[in-house]
């Protein structure tokens, strides 16, 4: 079954897409793949104009300059010429509910919000639906990795990082239980009713909620000291890796007064890997955030400014501000209809590019940087030797709507099926009306 020919891309596509009506994880037939002549965006800011990317056993073997690299055809079972196209590391959808919901309005399909206030023990991992129809419409735009994340409560739960291709969650998982998520309370609460939102007033429960959180963390630290805890406390047990291992603590919050409190909280408990999720005001506190080794998962840039008087473009400009301040950040897209909207993640980075980031910085903001924040940069995030071959090829600039056209994609060196039900429906009706 080893094909030792120079395949053209159409042929590879046909291999990848015509297997079944339902996109299926493909059985790997090709072990040694060479991608030739594409413009490579490494992810870490570097580029190779005409690249030779070698993939062996699912890992990236090398990235070289195709002009100086001489191809030994015997070494490869598949060589694909991607001249004129662009290669990107997988884009990473951090802070997402992909796989945890199918249809927002249908309660039965929603698996991201557990009841109760403090739930570090609930795990997104086991609810991740590898057969979600939405998932297939996302990866066709270059997003191949996601971080399914529980929502709600004070401690929402524990997220994991998943490849968006696999038979089941065990198969798909990239990082088990990467961190816990804290919904930092707001210092202000809403009043009024739906037609007439009232004023936002100081939250009378703020102090009380923070005290509750502090008490829980104190107990968790004490519990982590026990060698043989008896009886087992599931909630406290779920915190052990925060204090002993590399687990991240994700603080979901936007505004400076709360971020300052989060920093104080993190210092108090000597957290190793604190992350701000949201971070509308993060740039105003960049020095403090850096001093306390925070990184930031920026709120969806396609979001209205939070204050009436803010510059309309402020949200578009936040990535550039954090880049200039030297804060490690990535862009995420949580918000309304976030799951289906994940396919627009490349264009969020594109908008950040239009408002100040360089193209490679914009790419890093949804690949390399995200991988670092999620603690998966040893495996993914850039096209570098030794990392998983989780990457994709686009016809043109993947950050622009008009030219983002993913023609090839790999997860751990495996071709993935780029069809989805939307493409199939489109084809069905193109045929009906005899359209091209």
């Amino acid at each position: 079954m080893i094909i030792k020919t120079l395949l053209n891309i159409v042929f590879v596509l046909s291999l990848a897409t015509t297997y079944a009506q339902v996109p299926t994880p493909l059985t790997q037939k090709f072990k040694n793949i060479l991608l030739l002549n594409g413009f490579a965006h490494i992810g870490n800011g570097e580029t190779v104009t005409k690249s030779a990317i070698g993939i062996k056993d699912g890992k990236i073997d090398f990235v070289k300059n195709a002009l100086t690299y001489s191809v030994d055809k015997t070494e490869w079972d598949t060589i694909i010429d991607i001249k004129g196209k662009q290669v990107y590391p997988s884009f990473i959808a951090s802070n997402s509910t992909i796989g945890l919901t199918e249809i927002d309005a249908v309660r039965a399909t929603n698996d991201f919000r557990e009841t109760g206030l403090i739930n570090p023990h609930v795990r997104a991992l086991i609810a991740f639906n590898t057969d979600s129809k939405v998932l297939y419409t996302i990866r066709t735009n270059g997003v191949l990795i996601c971080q399914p994340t529980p929502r709600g409560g004070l401690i929402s739960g524990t997220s994991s990082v998943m490849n968006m291709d696999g038979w089941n969650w065990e198969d798909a998982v990239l990082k088990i239980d990467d961190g816990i998520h804290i919904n930092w309370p707001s210092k202000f609460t809403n009043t009024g009713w739906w037609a007439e939102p009232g004023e936002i007033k100081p939250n009378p429960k703020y102090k009380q909620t923070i005290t509750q959180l502090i008490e829980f963390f104190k107990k968790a630290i004490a519990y982590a000291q026990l060698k043989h805890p008896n009886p087992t406390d599931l909630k406290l047990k779920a915190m052990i890796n925060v204090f002993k291992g590399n687990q991240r603590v994700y603080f979901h919050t936007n505004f400076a007064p709360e971020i300052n409190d989060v920093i104080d909280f993190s210092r108090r408990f000597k957290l190793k890997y604190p992350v701000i999720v949201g971070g509308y005001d993060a740039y105003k506190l960049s020095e403090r955030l850096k001093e306390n080794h925070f990184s930031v998962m920026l709120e969806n840039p396609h979001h209205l400014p939070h204050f009436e008087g803010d510059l309309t473009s402020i949200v578009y400009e936040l990535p550039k501000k954090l880049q200039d301040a030297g804060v490690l950040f990535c862009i995420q897209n949580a918000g309304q209809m976030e799951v289906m909207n994940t396919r627009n993640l490349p264009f969020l980075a594109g908008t950040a590019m239009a408002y100040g980031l360089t193209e490679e910085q914009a790419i890093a903001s949804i690949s390399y940087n995200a991988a670092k924040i999620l603690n998966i940069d040893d495996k993914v995030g850039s096209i570098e030797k030794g990392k998983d071959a989780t990457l994709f090829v686009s016809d043109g600039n993947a950050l622009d709507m008009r030219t983002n056209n993913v023609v090839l994609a790999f997860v751990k060196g495996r071709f993935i099926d780029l069809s989805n039900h939307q493409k199939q429906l489109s084809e069905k009706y193109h045929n009906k009306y005899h359209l091209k």
Partner: protein
Amino acid sequence: MKKEKNNTLPHLNWFKITKLHFVFAIFFFYTSYVFTQEITPQNGVYQTNHTYYAITGATIHISSTQIIENGTLIFKNGIIQKIGKQFKLPNNCVEIDLKGYNIYPAFVDVYSSLSITKRISKHKTPYPQLTTLKLGPYYWNEAVHPETNAFELIDPQQLSKSTEKKKSTKQQWINNGFATVNVHQNDGILRGTSCLINLSDQPLKDNIIKTKVANHYSFSKGVSKQAYPSSQMGAIALIKQFYYDLMWYENLKHKQNENYSFESALANYNLPHIFKVDDKLEVLRVMKIAKEFGIDFIIKTANDCYERINEISALNPKLIIPLNFPKPFDLSDPFVARFVTLKQLKHWEMAPYNPYILHKNNVEFAFTLDGLTSKKDFLKNLRKTVKHGLPKQTALKALTENPARFLNVDNIIGTLEKNKFANFIVVKGDLFTNGEIYETWIDGKPHIIKDRHLIDIRGTYDFKIGEVVYPVEIKGKLEKPSGTIKSYNLIVDSLTGVTKMDTLTSKMSISFEGKQGSFSFVVNDNVHKGVIQLNGSFYLKLGIFEGNALLPNGSWTKWNGIKNKSFKSKNKKESFKVDTSAISRTFYPNMAYGFDSLPQQQSFFIKNATIWTNEEEGIIKNANLLITDGKIKSVNQSKIKLPPNCVEIDAKGKHLTCGIIDEHSHIAISKGVNESGQAVSAEVSIADVVRSNDINIYRQLSGGVTSAQLLHGSANPIGGQSALIKLKWGFSPQDMLIKDADGFIKFALGENVKQSNWGNYNRIRFPQTRMGVEQVFYDAFIRAKDYQKLWDDYNKLSDKEKQKTNPPRKDLELEIILQILKHKRFITCHSYVQSEINMLMHVADSMGFTVNTFTHILEGYKVADKLKRHGAGASTFSDWWAYKYEVNEAIPYNASILHKVGVVTALNSDDAEMGRRLNQEAAKIVKYGGVSEQDAWKMVTLNPAKLLHLDHKMGSIKVGKDADIVIWSDNPLSINAKVEKTFIDGILMYDVYRNEQLYKRDQLERKRIIKLMIEAKNNGEPTKKPTIKKEKHWHCDTIGE
């Protein structure tokens, strides 16, 4: 005469009395009827009341314009008999010398609900209430109850006299100088009548001056739980429909059933009409209704009219405004300070100028005590308005003559003239700068606020008790003096013979009433050791106390106290300066990014641009464009004579397009985008509730949007009428509406209209299935046709026959639906799945009209051929799906398939955020389905113009079309594209550079006002913690609870 003495007849007579007869009426009521010919049997002997009272020596303010120095005012039985300079008093006259005091007419509160019992709803379940629970001969809507009479709802407890233990509610009015209050039940849309009461301590019966004095209205349905109306536009439509129903009822030739709501509204129609609203835009909304029905509304509003003073003063309204002003914010934390908008800051500065600005613009107004959380602030705030420019005369008028005239009771209250109520206030000093109200006289009876006769005993004294003299100091408040006393104990050292003196200063407990003072204190001297208690009479002219003392040893002695120094108050006189310097600081709109003054049309010549014409010429490179008089004058003409004052813009490297048109938007709407109370609400109109101060208007401009269809939501199958607007930031709602545009209406299908996602309780309103939705449509159109026939038949009748026949009722809902059938109004229908899209086209075909636009239409690709055949257009999302079950088969290829089949296809936002990057959405159609860039661009410009029947003046770059132009930094479909300039009608509405300047100006403006706030705080004004007003962002699905 005798017959007229029963209980009801005099009341009836009262209302029939014309102004000319009023003098007689007063005489009749107060002289012969109420007092001398008492109806109510008395327990004991009858009390006569022929005594005259005379106020003498005072400065009498007869009205806001007439003052008598050293005047005399005589009244009897609460009614003024004579007023003027000194004259001979009647024999049986009690004289009250008020030399040194000012007498003003007492104030009239024209808007209050003092003492009125609250309304309660009978609805107790979580299920929606579709019909009224007020069963009987009433209007169908529970929020419309013109039959409510305030005089029947008074809780006498709240009007009872203040006692030492209990402060009555009314005391707050009396303390502030109010004698008469117009009270109503402040609940509902048509709230019924108010009643005019005096606040004296007489029995309620004697205090009610007029049982029905005005009709009251609002846009809020109050405690009514009936589903309709759920929005402000619904309330507006309901008021209109009620008035059409009322006219119909009045003209019925034979009434099958009497309706008490109508009967009451008719009976009370000639009373004044008072409408309560919340802001300046609502004032304009009421004035629209006023014009339609010829009702002279008196509008109770807030202190923000200055923001739209030109529009408001042009309508010449009568206003009632509260005397409450925003408190300064405590903005010490700069991060937290951001939560306060520039709008709030500016309003804090400008609100106290509002009365002055109204006065300057000749708008008549009355002040009310309503709206003040702390009624104690009333006088302080009144003085604030005077400090901010309001002439004292106008201020007095706004508290006396205007409210009296507004209520048509200026013949009995409002000024101090013969035959009017002896309602006046006694003031020491100038009421409008620093005077104090001592007494409020109501119906000829005094209510003491401060004791005029209070004797000031404060000062330093020598108290001689027995043979010992003690130095005493009395200070503190006039009403509650406090004091200290010193006693000296001489001790001779037995060894050295040296004398030492111990001084004891002890506090005195003092009470002083009338002219009797008593003191108790501890002394320690060589004679007395222990408690001494004193009682003494005070001789004011001499400044001497004299009386008896009970000594520590239990024996009695004489004492006296001689004042040697009077008390001097340390209170500084506050300087009172009138300052109107800030009145020109209003922005348009008065908030962040508002213009200093409204921008004007200019001529622009834009050269070297890449012009996307959307016409046959396609994209022209290196082209020029001339704009004059708000229109496109020439496109890429080689020889051009530029008009004078033409602004030249070099657009080298830039792209120029026509403005984006958002076919489906919900920005700039006040208080509810859905009238979800009923399945059919064609009668409501978004044009009634356009909100010109929504920041999203400005934000959309920064994304190149120049026009939008503001749609009703999708909560019911037949929603409401749309508003087609240009995003003219700073202009009034009326100026934003596109002139001569066709009328549109929102229809909706699917999950929203069948309330699928509204929780478990909303399973009552028809329809709950797609099957039911079809029937709602058929029913509406068939009813509309029947309605037309009804009128046709009636109009065919001869005049004689009409005299005997009941006319049909004007139905606003069916009239709008009829417009659809007559091709005068066009449908934009919210839709998702193919079955129902197909259904509506069948309904339309069978009724003989075309569905103009299907919006959302995410399964449009499945019926594209049918849409084309029917002639409908499509306005869709580029790539939305998965948010509801019905969008499970929504695909991003929808727009391209529809387009390829030949359906006019537009992309819309339905979202304030996406609305500012519709260019990106258009670019996605290049990706999904390979549509050409120019065709994709038309999906956000020319195609929506076509769908809105505006393509004759918008949607492309063509000579003669509106100059709605955008200059882009790049190809507008590129991810790098940014808007640099947006023009509407040749007015530069947005400019990326000016945007930065406005931002900087706003920051400085904030700093300037924050400085003023800090000063106010340091001057002792109470501050409040920052709060922010959250803006509501509407979507189709935004519904009530």
